[in-house]
């Protein structure tokens, strides 16, 4: 279903595997769904010139980001035959190995979910004003840029 009012996509801290499992469970009453596709962004222990990332600290221009997430959501429902769609993004500190982005799309048919999920993830990366500060093990940091 497509709502008309922007929802809050942000959650404080990492997105847990239990939260994701529960979200899957909630969709088992929707018997028109034949295919789910889930994207999870996980914080990588990147080695940048000898320093290893230990966490990413996320901040966002929240009002604008929620509006952009809403626009992405509406555009995705217009383009693809989806039954439902959910986006969750972390704010604050997310350690390596923890999940910072959870995108969940469901449809009667599998072809739709593949196209829709990639579209949503690329749109989020390009349009949502979210900023990740990569914190190294020695407490120094650098600002991440999406590629």
């Amino acid at each position, binding site marked *: 279903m497509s709502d008309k009012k922007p929802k809050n996509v942000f959650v404080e801290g990492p997105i847990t595997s239990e939260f994701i499992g529960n979200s899957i469970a909630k969709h088992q009453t929707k018997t028109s769904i034949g295919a789910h596709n889930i994207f999870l962004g996980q914080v990588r222990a990147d080695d940048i010139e000898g320093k290893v990332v230990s966490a990413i600290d996320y901040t966002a221009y929240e009002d*604008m980001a929620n509006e952009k997430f809403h626009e992405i959501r509406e555009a995705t429902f217009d383009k693809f035959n989806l039954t439902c769609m959910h986006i969750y993004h972390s704010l604050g500190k997310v350690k390596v190995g923890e999940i910072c982005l959870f995108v969940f799309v469901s449809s009667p048919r599998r072809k739709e979910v593949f196209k829709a999920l990639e579209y949503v993830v690329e749109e989020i*990366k390009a349009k949502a004003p979210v900023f*990740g500060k990569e914190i190294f093990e020695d407490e120094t940091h650098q600002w991440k840029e999406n590629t």
Partner: protein
Amino acid sequence: MQLNIKYFGLIAELTTCNEETLEFSEATIADLKEVLVEKYPELKTKDFQIAQNKEIVSSNAIVSGEEIAILPPFSGG
């Protein structure tokens, strides 16, 4: 006119504040950029975009006085 300006990420680090009010008497976003670069010379070497009323605006857009935000490159996800 009084402009309320929000700073994010790398830019907020550089301005050392998240939000401030500036006096602005010019017309365009390009003019605003000049005002900002004058106040924060380091901005000159940084890549940033300006949002007005939660939409990215181009340099020739007119400053309306609505919510202004200075945004470094996005890195969500």
